[in-house]
């Protein structure tokens, strides 16, 4: 089902750099795991109503408004950044 190129592509999608050697090892691991999780196809779900259980949990909504943090909290958070300038995180050029 899977090949090394696909593993590397999954790496790109998830922003992980996979070396040649790693991709070989990971391919073996992931193939084995995918073979195991594929057993779910043994269960037919099309004819079952998968939402007929009693739902206890409610969806919680709030207004789409921001909360202002204290200066101290903002400073605590920014102090963790590898590169910051004033109240901004510094990032590499995107465009």
């Amino acid at each position, binding site marked *: 089902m899977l090949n090394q190129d696909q593993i590397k592509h999954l790496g790109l999608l*998830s922003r*992980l750099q996979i070396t040649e050697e790693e991709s070989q090892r990971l391919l073996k691991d*992931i193939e084995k795991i995918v073979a195991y999780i*594929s057993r779910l196809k043994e269960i037919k779900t099309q004819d079952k109503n998968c939402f*007929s*259980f009693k739902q206890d949990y409610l969806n919680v909504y*709030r207004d789409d408004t921001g909360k202002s943090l204290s200066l101290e*909290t903002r400073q*605590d958070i920014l102090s963790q950044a590898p590169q910051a300038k004033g109240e901004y995180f510094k990032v590499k050029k995107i465009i």
Partner: protein
Amino acid sequence: MWDFVNFVKFYEVPHRKMTIKEYHNNLVSKKFSAAEFVSGIFRDIEKENDYLNVFLSLYKEEALLKAKKVDEKLNRGEAIGILEGAPYAVKDNILIKNTKTTAGSKMLENYIAPYDATVIEKLNAEGAIALGKTNLDEFAMGSSTENSAFGPTKNPYDATRVAGGSSGGSAAAVAKNWAVFSLGSDTGGSVRQPASFCGVFGLKPTYGRLSRWGLIAMASSLDQIGIFANCTDDIAIVLKAISGKDELDATSQDKTFNWEGRDFDIKNFLKNIKIGLPAEYLQEGLNPEIKKIVKEKIGKLEQLGVKVLNISLPLTPYALAVYYIIMPAEVSSNLARYDGIKYGYTFSKEQTKDLIDYYMKTRSEGFGTEAKRRILLGTFVLSHGYADKFYLKANEIRNLMIQEFQEAFKQVDIIITPTSPTLPFKIGEKIKDPLSMYLADIYTVSANLAYIPALSVPVGKIGALPVGLQLMGAWWEEEKMLKLSKVIESLRQE
């Protein structure tokens, strides 16, 4: 500044277990002071922690200062709360403000938490004393603590074996009497399995019973903060203190736990409780000696008049597959935030080409092998062409599992199973074969998938190695589960 420690009489910490109530009563009756007890613990930790690798960081000065304040309160004749002065350990994926919180990963090796987790705030309000942060599998991914970037935690009963995972450090801390209770997290068994491996009680509450604010997220629909302790009452006391709705965690429900181990009509309880024993948890793959202990305990309960029914949970063989689709999918999403921009590990070796290159190099160096494996797996099951077959399918079956449990709980009150199919395994035994490691969770993942509460109760040893019994209850039924646990405790021969 005087070194406070040198002026405190060193008290030999008794190597028998100390429960929260015992500790509290000893403080109140002045049998020993909090400062003596806590400094005794640190002395023991300092002797053996390098070897066992239980704690990643320790707060000796702060803890002793807090202990001193509790002693001063007692000396003034003031009353103290049940948890006041109680020393506890915290898994290092739970944030304590201004302390290093590493999640067991290079990615957060030097991360200083900017806020307290809600459960920590609550324990602070009770006056409990955090001793330090315990070791874990990186980002809570693992069943042995071998995936920690800082080395595995050794099992206190046999140092050649694992303490279990991912909350191995927290389980070992309580087992070693280096904390009267501790906090962990449980996504697929990460509290219950190490509790079983270390011979202590370990609870995963009902999903939503308490706040996950300040718990570093692994899989958001499965994660719950859990509790390790030396007896059922202690689990109840801590659960009462930390449970409850939190505005900062929309998944927390308004269901504060209110039973802290009060006496109850045991006779009546035994008459009415029904236990279910699911056939699927006693089949091939289960160590026969563990099976024997489980059956023995159930036999003893039957002798007390408890009704035991053989039940069936036919979806059990699929639970691990459902888990290893949903969990990696959520992991791949939750770990996307570790990009070296706002906090955490950054790639500093050479100039990186562009932002994507920066992300890729930072993440590849910051994450360990298991984290990468799960992120890739999660990305795979969510990707175009596979999402229906895997992710959607897994969610449908998860719903069917919830229905299956609900049906079972119409017939019985508590379901009993072994916690782990094996005894604590040797360090290095399963680390090369990820799938064999995943199979360690085969009995515990269902509770997380179904959102139900589950407790591991220590029920004996095989040789030197502890064995745990798992109790599972319906949503919000921790009290029933804990009452049954108290009955099982009373069966212990000692």
